[in-house]
């Protein structure tokens, strides 16, 4: 399905950690959204800010039309988005981009999420669980908060929901050591890699973290998919603003060639 314009209605919008919001919306396009794709949201109320806000989702439920978004308030757009209340309506463009791909080789998957990169990783876990593919996960956060714990619970219970033994280990790392292991996701990733065999890696988070994860995966010859971020003008391939540098030279467009890329294609 190509990207088009859809109405949505806010069902709930809650502060779940410092500057992090969980918003549930209802939209007819939920059924068409694939894990790892994104939606581009118009935030009403301020003609001075014109660009839409691109957001990933942790879950898009085709049966009840509910899409779960988690976002950090970093500027005007996300701050006004956080001020939207249940019942408020706006439009979104979607489905945008290409989502996660199922692994081409059999074997377990390793998921590595950092900060606000967690929602699309939860979507990846859902995809793997549905396909009956087992995975372990490393979740990095600045500090332990309820929403991170909730999403980790979500990862753990996914396996039960889908009736398979999918998530065996979910390791939390925090920068401040409030919970889990104090340290970086890449360190926890190395530990898991030393103990287990993985066929593929899925990662989303800060650029530097993804570069580190991609490098480790490459060193071990494991296929790695990354979900990239770029400033976006349109979200559907019309403006060439969202370039991602490629190893082969030149650029791909994050919105229409990605946001999910093979890590080896990206010039980190």
């Amino acid at each position, binding site marked *: *399905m*190509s*990207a*088009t*314009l859809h109405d949505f209605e806010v069902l709930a919008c809650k502060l779940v950690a410092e500057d992090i919001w969980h918003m549930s919306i209802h939209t007819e396009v939920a059924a068409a959204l694939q894990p790892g794709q994104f939606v581009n949201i*118009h935030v009403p109320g301020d*003609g*001075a*800010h*014109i*660009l*839409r806000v691109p957001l990933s989702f942790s879950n898009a439920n085709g049966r009840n039309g509910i899409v779960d978004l988690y976002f950090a308030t970093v500027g*005007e757009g996300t701050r006004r988005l956080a001020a939207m209340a249940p019942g408020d309506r706006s439009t979104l*463009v979607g489905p945008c981009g290409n989502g996660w791909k199922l692994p081409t080789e059999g074997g377990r998957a390793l998921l590595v999420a950092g900060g606000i990169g967690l929602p699309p990783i939860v979507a990846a876990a859902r995809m793997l669980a549905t396909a009956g593919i087992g995975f372990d996960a490393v979740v990095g956060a600045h500090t332990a908060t309820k929403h991170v714990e909730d999403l980790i619970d979500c990862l753990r219970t996914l396996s039960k929901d889908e009736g398979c033994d999918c998530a065996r280990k979910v390791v939390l790392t925090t920068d401040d050591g409030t919970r889990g292991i104090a340290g970086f996701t890449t360190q926890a990733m190395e530990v898991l890699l030393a103990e287990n065999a993985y066929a593929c890696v899925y990662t989303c988070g800060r650029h530097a973290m993804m570069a580190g994860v991609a490098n480790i995966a490459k060193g071990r010859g494991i296929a790695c998919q990354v979900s990239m971020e*770029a*400033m*976006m*003008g*349109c979200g*559907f*391939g*019309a*403006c*060439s*603003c*969202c*370039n*991602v*540098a490629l190893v082969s*030279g*030149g*650029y791909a467009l994050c919105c*229409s060639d990605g946001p999910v890329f093979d890590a080896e294609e990206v010039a980190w």
Partner: protein
Amino acid sequence: MVSTVNMAVNLGGIQMRNPINTASGTFGNGMQFEGFYDVGTTLGAITCKGVAAEPWDGNPAPRLAELNGAAIMNSVGLQNPGVREFVERYGDYLQGLRDRGCAVICQVAGHSLREYERAMDLFEELAPFASGFEINISCPNIAAGGAAMGATPAGAAEVMRAIRPRTGRPVVVKMAPHDVAEIGRALEAEGADALSLINTIPGMAIDINTRRSRLARPTAGVSGPAIHAIAVRMVWECAQAVSIPLCGIGGVANWEDAAEMILAGATAVSVGTANLYDPTCAARVVEGLTAWATQQGVSEIGELVGAFEA
């Protein structure tokens, strides 16, 4: 209400069913908008992204910043696959647009006179689907050519002189936002069939914490609703200086903005940045403009071109 107004216009030989066109670089190559509306049966024309003889990578990231006040800044730098690949990828789709009654304007880019000529020759040979061409002598985001070549009446005239003998199809020239009367006259004298204006306005956005540009380059092009009033003024100035038709571009975000452009002297009007954040904008502008023309009591939209009274 069914409109009886004839909305068709002629942009220097490019027949358009209505005045609405799309600004180069803000509409992909049309197909990205097919999910939003039927481009071929709705718009008067589309203008494709600038294409050079050989592929260009464009500038590094970030290429975009949002400004406070209904504007954005971009430094894409004409990333394009080169004429051959462009025709390969989009030729069939663009021919389909022609078949559905939408004019197709291909934009020609270059770093030097030689490159403009080569790109023009390739287009002439490989792009039978093009209703006409737009020569981009005003891109602020490339180091050589582009805006540098179009910066003076003499430089602009030189490009037009090189292009003119290479195609019998209509040639539109895309102008930078300065000296539009003088440069417009020079282009008309060299046989340009129409002019389009304005390209983005060079600007800067500085991150006050890092003391660096918010984009990868120090300067970039400002576009969006904030530049509309400036664009209308330039269209008006240019319209008084030349007798060839104009395509008005700059901050058009609704039919009222398009109507203003027409009154200032534009025969056609392009929707640009608004396509990106409001993807059905151009289609709604067509509707609104038709209703306005009907309400103005004219029998054809052309009667309103330049109808502004100073």
